[in-house]
């Protein structure tokens, strides 16, 4: 695991933003021997407002708990995109819910990946698993964590009755991400792993 990676996942309340971040943190802290600290931003409203969660992954104990400049930004709403893209670290990775976010201008030096997470989730029969599709996609394009650690974290974070569905969602997202990275390689571009080396 890298010494320190800052990740922000943002969208609107009800999309499972917090759970997505919790799965990533859990994979690192419980199933891959690293450290993870997750915090979340929310206002007084119960649902529907903007929502963002932050996870720091590290090979060392984490002191400062908040993300200052994310290495990886996952956005699942237009508002989240507008608000958080300016703070993405130069050379960082931007992951979009491509049906919900229209990109006006690609941020300089960022590597951008899109996934129709909501549509993929609907094809599986349940729109609510879009967050887990997103986690799978995140895993494949960032390669920050082992797929198996993430899979275990998914299984560990959902009720037993929904485990199968969520693992399918994870696999869908992961496969979609692996394809995206594969296409990049075909075009002779560096894949995400190399991209992260110069973060």
């Amino acid at each position, binding site marked *: 695991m890298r010494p320190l990676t800052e990740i922000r996942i943002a969208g609107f309340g009800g999309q499972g933003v917090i759970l997505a971040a919790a799965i990533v943190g859990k994979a690192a802290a419980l199933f891959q021997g690293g450290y993870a600290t997750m915090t*979340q931003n929310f206002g*007084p409203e119960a649902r529907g407002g903007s929502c963002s969660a932050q996870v720091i992954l590290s090979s060392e104990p984490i002191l400062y708990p908040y993300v200052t400049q994310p290495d990886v930004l996952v956005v699942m709403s237009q508002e989240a995109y507008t608000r958080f893209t300016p703070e993405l670290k130069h050379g960082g990775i931007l992951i979009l819910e491509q049906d919900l976010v229209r990109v006006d201008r690609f941020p300089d030096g960022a590597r951008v990946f899109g996934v129709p997470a909501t549509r993929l989730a609907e094809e599986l029969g349940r729109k609510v698993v879009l967050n887990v599709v997103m986690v799978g996609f995140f895993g494949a394009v960032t390669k920050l964590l082992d797929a198996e650690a993430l899979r275990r974290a998914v299984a560990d974070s959902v009720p037993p009755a929904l485990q199968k569905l969520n693992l399918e969602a994870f696999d869908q997202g992961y496969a979609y991400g692996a394809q995206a990275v594969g296409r990049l390689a075909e075009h002779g571009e560096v894949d995400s792993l190399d991209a992260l080396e110069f973060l």
Partner: protein
Amino acid sequence: MHADPKGVLTGVHFLDGDHACCEGTLAAGARFSAGYPITPSTEVVERFAARIPTVGGVFVQMEDELAASIAIQGAVWGGAKAFTVTSGPGFSLMMEHIGYAVMTETPCVFVNVQRGGPSTGLPTLPAQADMMQARWGSHGDYGIIALCPNSPQECFDLTITAFNLAEEFRVPVLMMLDECVGHMTEKVIIPEPGQIEITPRHLTQRPPEAFHVFEPGENLVPEMVQAGDGYRFHITGLTHDERGYPSMNVEVQDRLVRRLQDKLKPLANGRALCETEHLDDADVVVVSYGITSRVAQRALQLARQKGIRAGKFRIIQAWPFPEERIRELAGRVKAFVVPELNLGQMVHEVERAAAGQAKVIPVSHAGGGVHNPEAILKAIVEAAK
């Protein structure tokens, strides 16, 4: 005595501080909670309400904080270990009954997940501005115990410590979280029940005719009884004698109120809970607690990289204040730097204990976020000059 396995969720978890605190209450043996949930403390009792039916116990959602903070005391005298949870304005409302628990020596735990104030302030954002209220918020002279965890793991561990100290000293113990620690999610290891030490209630062995409910032992703490065991006892918030009956006598008042303070003295001195680092060669000591202690640790690393001899004094037990430790350090360091998420509270205690022997530099922050480590570093650099 070891923890009752029914309440212990042994394993490795990814929990926020509030949830970890709840698991701490269950592991410590709490089987009753009454609450009037308020952000950012709600998750503690939300989890308790979900867990307690299978563990065996009671959660009551009360009509307000006054009711919650007194219902737990009824439960304690009925034999249970009990706690309540609050934040911000709710903590203000509980002051009356914190005093009642002090006066009636009712062992119980109050969890305050501090948010920005005054008044309703910043419901979802952190502060550490209730530290003096924790110490002095109820009227009259008294002593209190307050603990400040800085991680979800400590929210679990120190909640157990809080219940144990409550039983040992028969005093309400305040768990002073902050929103950041309460809502931060990290790995939490919950050990096997056999590895968790629990202080049982010190119930009297004397026969009813020879027992006085407020007669102190050598440690200044009276033995306890519980309703239904055949003892007749009278509990009142009025000044009372050793039998528990009201008294208007000046000497009774003096004896009682002094004892309520004096029984906590061992904690102010040798037993003060704290965490220290690099104090042997330190010129500057950073005194901090709660979430600020983690930010301060980062500043300390940066200071050491600059070659500044900076040491760490993390307050885990804010009250009683570890004044002997600070006084001893004050004789041999140049300065204390005291960052906190308020405009200056515990820094006054550091000043008092240092008694002019070393400079004391506050790094204040009105709350709503945490310090930038650079701000603390700047103060360390200034202090070292």
